[in-house]
């Protein structure tokens, strides 16, 4: 059994954590204070029977006392620690990293999902599973949650920030967040869980993943070369998405810390500088257990929570699989306002005029959309390899009431054609030339890698990227004719439409796999990966000129990427379009002028308006005649042209036999006069009824198709 620290110091710290004196412990154990003192100074150790009593007194189990690899659960109560104001009087009115992002769940999805991908445990070959949960709390559930996060302790800080609200952005956001909670009596939690990921490992303060996320700004500890992020900005989206600037974290570690792995808890609050009860506070605050080793035992550190506490904070995890759960308190989605109407369907019932940034159904939809768009490739497997990522999104209300069923983001639904293309590539079923709908054409495209270290013009080697092109899947597969570019982490980085395609080109979708995405065997895959990672800005939405590229390669290195883009566009055009034929008789300009094509129609002149047939109901009468009831709509106009209804029988070619009317009568809005409909001025809608004359039918009525037309004038 692993033995932790010496008994004496350990016991001393546990007493301090629990706020007990040596005398109090001695009294509980029925021993003298001197005996306890002797243990602490290391002059003696307690007998095994006493060990059990000590465990009881400290509120822990015998094993913990014996191994001493961790602290007991007893201790100072979990509380908020607000970083005091700087002694130099400096004020920070917000976190610059969080300023870089607007509250946008789609950006959050991209950043968090990318982090989870980067932290995937690779040894077992399984995908990292990420789940987004939108959870709306109201009524007693909201109250219970507020108690759990010690809302009453926080409230003075929020009030102080609200007073500053007029002056700066973070204050206004927080003020609106608090007001929304009180006015509408609800709070939206957005939880991001990942499983089969490394979790927040490492010490509370020293270098490690925990400190990188919880304690530090702009630090990224991504180790893998193909990692997506490298700026450490991504985590700021968590706080940017919270209108209250509050995120709680529960992590299950892949590597034990303090002898434990499960339920490592911490909360972090991002507020601007404020003054509460005459004391200035710098900004951030942490929710945790006061660290007895810190000055005044005030600094809050992570604690190992019990299951009940975790449940109260809505942070229970499904299993003991490593990974992290982030709970964004007061999630809102400002970007959805802009997007609404354009890319959302009508099935979201919207209250009139109520532009709600906290609609969990809409957020659900936007999350699924963004995840499908950016991570379809990571979610795609094939050819015996598992996908890297599985993602699902769900929406709940209060105590497990399901608003939107857990939806697994399916790449073949979100990106049908590209997923098909990538699968075909993994399965090895691609072709060289597109000759059949549904085929996937693959082609190598060169990326000339520059020499690093400021050498201008030199080429290290040529990396062969893989371009996949396939037909777009139906009308919903939009936008069409785009290339999605991705590297090792399989996140879509660049989405670009291929320019200069001839008219009538069949809609297609393309994928460009560069760097390690092109396969381990591709030449210079590692170098290309590194190069492109350096060329990727924090938004992860393109490759181009960046400072890092200039520093590590040369100021002109980005031209290599332009070269790649050009090669890609040419290759795509070669695959989907025919080369233009030149030198045709008569010249291109004349050819173009002599093509019959749709032009905008001429302006309709003012004058008498012409009624049009708007609806038709027809049945076959007992004698075999067609009986019709027709509706006519009339454009606005002073004078209405009289129209003659004409019944014809449809034929495949040639003239259509005309039927005579046996009856023709007006129902509404018109008069029949000598086989012609006359409309009184101002009428916009009319109905008439008629029956054909059977003797004029050339064939049995049941075998005919009737065509009814309105003709101006006499209808000859």
């Amino acid at each position, binding site marked *: 059994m692993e033995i932790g620290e010496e008994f004496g110091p350990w016991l001393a710290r546990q007493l301090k954590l629990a706020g007990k004196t040596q005398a109090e412990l001695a009294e509980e154990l029925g021993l003298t204070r001197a005996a306890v003192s002797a243990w602490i100074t290391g002059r003696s150790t307690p007998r095994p029977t006493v060990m059990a009593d000590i465990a009881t007194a400290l509120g822990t189990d015998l094993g913990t006392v014996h191994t001493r690899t961790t602290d007991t659960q007893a201790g100072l109560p979990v509380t908020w620690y607000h970083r005091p104001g700087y002694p130099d009087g400096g004020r920070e009115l917000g976190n610059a990293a969080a300023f870089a992002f607007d509250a946008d769940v789609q950006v959050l999805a991209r950043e968090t999902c990318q982090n989870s991908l980067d932290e995937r445990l690779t040894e077992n070959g399984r995908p990292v599973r990420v789940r987004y949960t939108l959870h709306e709390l109201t009524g007693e559930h909201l109250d219970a949650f507020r108690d759990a996060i010690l809302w009453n302790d926080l409230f003075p800080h929020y009030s102080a920030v609200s007073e500053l609200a007029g002056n700066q952005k973070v204050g206004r956001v927080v003020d609106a967040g608090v007001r929304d909670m009180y006015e509408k009596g609800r709070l939206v939690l957005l939880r991001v869980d990942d499983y089969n990921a490394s979790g927040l490992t490492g010490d509370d303060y020293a270098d490690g993943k925990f400190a990188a996320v919880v304690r530090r700004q702009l630090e990224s500890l991504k180790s893998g070369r193909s990692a997506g992020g490298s700026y450490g900005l991504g985590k700021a989206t968590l706080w940017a998405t919270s209108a209250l600037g509050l995120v709680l974290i529960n992590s299950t570690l892949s590597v034990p810390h303090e002898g434990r792995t499960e339920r490592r808890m911490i909360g972090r609050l991002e507020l601007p500088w404020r003054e509460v009860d005459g004391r200035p506070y710098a900004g951030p605050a942490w929710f945790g257990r006061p660290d007895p080793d810190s000055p005044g035992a005030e600094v809050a550190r992570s604690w190992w929570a019990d299951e009940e506490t975790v449940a109260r904070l809505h942070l229970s995890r499904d299993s003991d699989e490593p990974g992290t759960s982030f709970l964004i308190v007061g999630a809102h989605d400002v970007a959805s306002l802009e997007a609404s109407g354009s890319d959302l369907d009508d099935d979201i019932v919207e209250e009139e005029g109520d532009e709600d940034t906290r609609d969990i159904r809409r957020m659900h939809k936007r999350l699924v959309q963004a995840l499908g768009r950016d991570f379809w490739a990571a979610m795609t497997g094939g050819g015996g390899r598992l996908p890297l990522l599985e993602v699902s999104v769900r929406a709940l209300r209060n105590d497990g009431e399901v608003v939107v069923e857990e939806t697994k983001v399916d790449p073949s639904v979100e990106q049908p054609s590209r997923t098909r293309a990538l699968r075909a590539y993994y399965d090895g079923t691609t072709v060289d*030339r*597109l*000759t*059949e*709908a549904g*085929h996937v054409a693959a082609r190598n495209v060169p990326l000339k890698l520059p020499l690093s270290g400021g050498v201008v013009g030199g080429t290290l080697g040529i990396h062969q990227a893989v371009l996949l092109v396939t*037909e777009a899947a139906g009308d919903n597969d939009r936008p069409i004719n785009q290339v999605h570019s991705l590297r090792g982490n399989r996140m879509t980085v660049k989405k670009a439409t291929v320019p200069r395609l*001839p*008219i*009538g*080109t*069949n*809609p297609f979708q393309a994928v460009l796999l560069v760097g390690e995405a092109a396969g381990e065997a591709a030449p210079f895959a590692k170098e290309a990966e590194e190069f492109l990672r350096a060329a990727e800005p924090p938004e992860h939405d393109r490759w181009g000129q960046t400072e890092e590229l200039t520093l590590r390669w040369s100021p002109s290195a980005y031209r290599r990427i332009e070269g790649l883009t050009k090669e890609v566009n040419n290759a795509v055009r070669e695959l*989907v*379009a*025919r080369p233009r*034929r030149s030198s*045709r*008789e*008569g*010249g*291109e*300009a*004349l*050819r173009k*002028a*002599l*093509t*019959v*094509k*749709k*032009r905008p*129609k*001429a302006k*309709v*002149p003012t004058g008498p308006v*012409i009624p049009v047939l708007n609806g*038709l109901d*027809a049945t*076959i009468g007992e004698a075999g005649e067609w009986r*019709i009831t027709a509706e006519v709509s009339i454009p606005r106009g002073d004078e209405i042209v009289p129209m003659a209804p004409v019944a014809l029988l*449809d034929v495949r*070619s*040639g*003239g*259509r*036999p*005309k039927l005579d009317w046996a009856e023709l009568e007006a129902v509404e809005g018109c008069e029949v006069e000598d086989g012609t409909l006359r409309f009184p001025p101002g009428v916009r809608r009319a109905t008439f009824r008629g029956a054909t004359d059977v003797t004029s039918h050339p064939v049995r*009525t*049941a*075998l*005919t*198709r*009737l*065509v*009814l*037309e309105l*003709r*101006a004038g006499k209808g*000859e």
Partner: protein
Amino acid sequence: MKIYPYKRLNRPITLRVTSVSLKLADGTRDQLDTSAYSTQQQVVALGVAGHEDWVSATIGLSATLPPGADVPDAAWSDVRVVAVLTDGETNVRTATHLTRDAEDSRDWSGSLEVLRDDHLGRASLAVDAVGTVDGVAGRSIAETDRSWTVDTVSDEPVGGLQLEVRKASFTRSSREWLRAYADAPWIVDTSARVPTVFVNTDVEGIVGLLNSSGSGVESKVRDLLVAQMATDVWTAVFHGAMGDLEVEPGGSPVFPTDWQGEVLREMLPDVVPGVHVEEALRQVHRRRTGDAGWAELQTRIHYAAIRRAEASRALGYAIRSLEQANRESEK
């Protein structure tokens, strides 16, 4: 408005072309790239590969019936799906049965054999679903709403009909009839399969001007010339199309199905604005064959032709470029 004496599906069938291959005279096959057809324009261009000697083409098809086609209590039974290729010029109609992809699928697929000798140019391809309704077999229950065009000549899958342009020396051409027009720079022949513009190469520089691709005054003059020619052509083809109409027993004209139909469908809305093309056709036909109104209509026909030729734009550019040239010479 059309109505059937039995129940059918309201929504149309969607038709896709999935592959095209040509059978050559020597018995070999050439599988064409998917760029031989355009799903947006709904055109198959069999001339793309540049083969002079192809015998037949095989077009792979896939059709999806609208929802409701396969409900158990449907009014129809024995549903079959046929692809029909209709050529309005040669009056050839070819039908092929499609087969259902799977037992409970609404997708049907098959392939259509197009014999080159059966067609002159553009044929239209539609799909019908037929079944037995009320005891009558072979009734159409749904069809495609927009036909595909199979063009056996064109080398570009674009929807619009392109009129022919040919160069010829009017004095020395083997087409002897051109000699009568030796002093005309161009002439339009609407009696050909597709209306053809003959450009007289005896007029020195005309071909060079038409082929020029430069910018500056030269291109503006070229555009002006093209606009002038196009106005002539459109006027001529409109008259050609109007003069060759088939007439129904009642005296109403029948809308033509070949290039004439395409030309009329495009130009009639400018000639008789504000009415359906069928009605417009009747009105124009009445005026042409009736006692009065034909002369008055010429202005509208001319207007429609000018619009199609984009004459005002070409003229505007030419004038602006001239003004610019004048300003530069003053400096």
